[in-house]
């Protein structure tokens, strides 16, 4: 009796720990989308099931929505992208790996507390890991990898092991050839919640400034970039006087 119990337990453990290839399925296709089969690129169709390790490429104004496993982990492949998909799953865990060579993906990974989830998007310069979240990941030759969180929290790590945990409007950015990722607030540092103009402007200049806006505050580094360089280092404390005139009518 004891032997049977042990054998059953062993079978049970074996059954739940075996990783099987997950079903990778195209849910929707728009425009020109193809997958690589051998040396050929074949147009991707809706409901088509893809093999583990398949490469998918999208053309201009084209996209595809791909379901990666039974937990509805889904990605939308954006225009002009090329990815490679690996996905395996068992009853207790899922392991998904997206290789992003170019372009961008939106990844939606719903949380299931009963299943251990590994979901990674890798580019030539860094990798992001997500669980129970939604993120936009992009990679390009010039700007490198960028990760923006739509909901939840993610961790991204470059090839040297430098990592950032980001949420909200923070952004992970890793340029090719740089040792550490960019500042996590780089996506919002040029955006002020009110118009910012220097003192001593004539009404005409102010009007021009309001019209051209971005010439005043919208350069790549913006006003905060100038502030950072004046302060000397990112760790410095800077006092910024803000006068808010409340019109209490």
């Amino acid at each position, binding site marked *: 009796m004891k032997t049977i119990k042990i054998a059953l337990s062993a079978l049970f453990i074996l059954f739940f720990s075996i990783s099987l290839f997950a079903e990778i399925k195209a849910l929707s296709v728009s425009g*020109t989308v193809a997958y690589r089969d051998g040396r050929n690129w074949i147009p991707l169709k809706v409901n088509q099931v893809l093999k583990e390790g398949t490469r998918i*490429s999208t*053309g201009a*104004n084209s996209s595809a929505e791909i379901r990666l496993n039974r937990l509805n982990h889904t990605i939308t492949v954006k225009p002009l992208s090329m990815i490679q998909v690996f996905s395996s799953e068992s009853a207790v865990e899922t392991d998904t790996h997206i290789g992003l060579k170019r372009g*961008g993906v939106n990844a939606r990974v719903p949380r299931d507390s009963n299943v251990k989830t590994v979901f990674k998007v890798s580019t030539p310069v860094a990798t992001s890991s997500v669980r129970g979240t939604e993120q936009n990941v992009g990679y*390009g030759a010039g700007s490198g990898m960028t990760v923006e969180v739509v909901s939840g929290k993610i961790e991204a790590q470059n090839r040297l092991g430098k990592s950032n945990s980001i949420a909200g409007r923070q952004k992970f950015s890793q340029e090719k050839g740089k040792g550490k990722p960019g500042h996590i607030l780089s996506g919002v540092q040029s955006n002020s919640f009110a118009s910012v103009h220097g003192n001593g402007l004539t009404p005409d200049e102010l009007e021009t400034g309001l019209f051209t806006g971005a010439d005043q505050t919208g350069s*790549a580094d913006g006003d905060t970039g100038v502030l950072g360089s004046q302060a000397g280092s990112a760790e410095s404390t800077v006092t910024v006087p803000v006068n808010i005139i409340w019109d209490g009518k």
Partner: protein
Amino acid sequence: MKNIAGILILFLSLFIFSTAPAQDISQLNFIHSLDSQAIATYGDAVKLFAVSTGARAGNFASESAFLEEQGLALKYNEDKSLSRGMAALMTARYLNLKGSFMYLIFKSERYAYRACVADSLMPGDASEFDKLSGPELLELMSLINDKKGE
């Protein structure tokens, strides 16, 4: 007579469905080849902008004519190496960028590049004379698509 019409429609639909994917794959083949080019050409930019703005894939002349109608074409030869300034001017016209006051006055490649920098479409530490590689052109088009989608 009815049978012949039915057969004709069947052949016509078979023809349409069998040729459409081949055209699509040629667009992807162009993109894959562009992805490995060290320097992109004006012809590459014309093709990419043309297919992105809804033109059917064709030759340089037809795509240029299409972009001319959209107000995006420039006066260069197909084989001319693509500079940041050239790509920036096409981009600024396509997205109707207003990020540079100087660009609003002088619609030049120089200030179009500044307008692209202001909208985070191009890096601020480069020059409008830099040559653009194929992967950089594809990245620019991805950023343009994101901007269009905002």
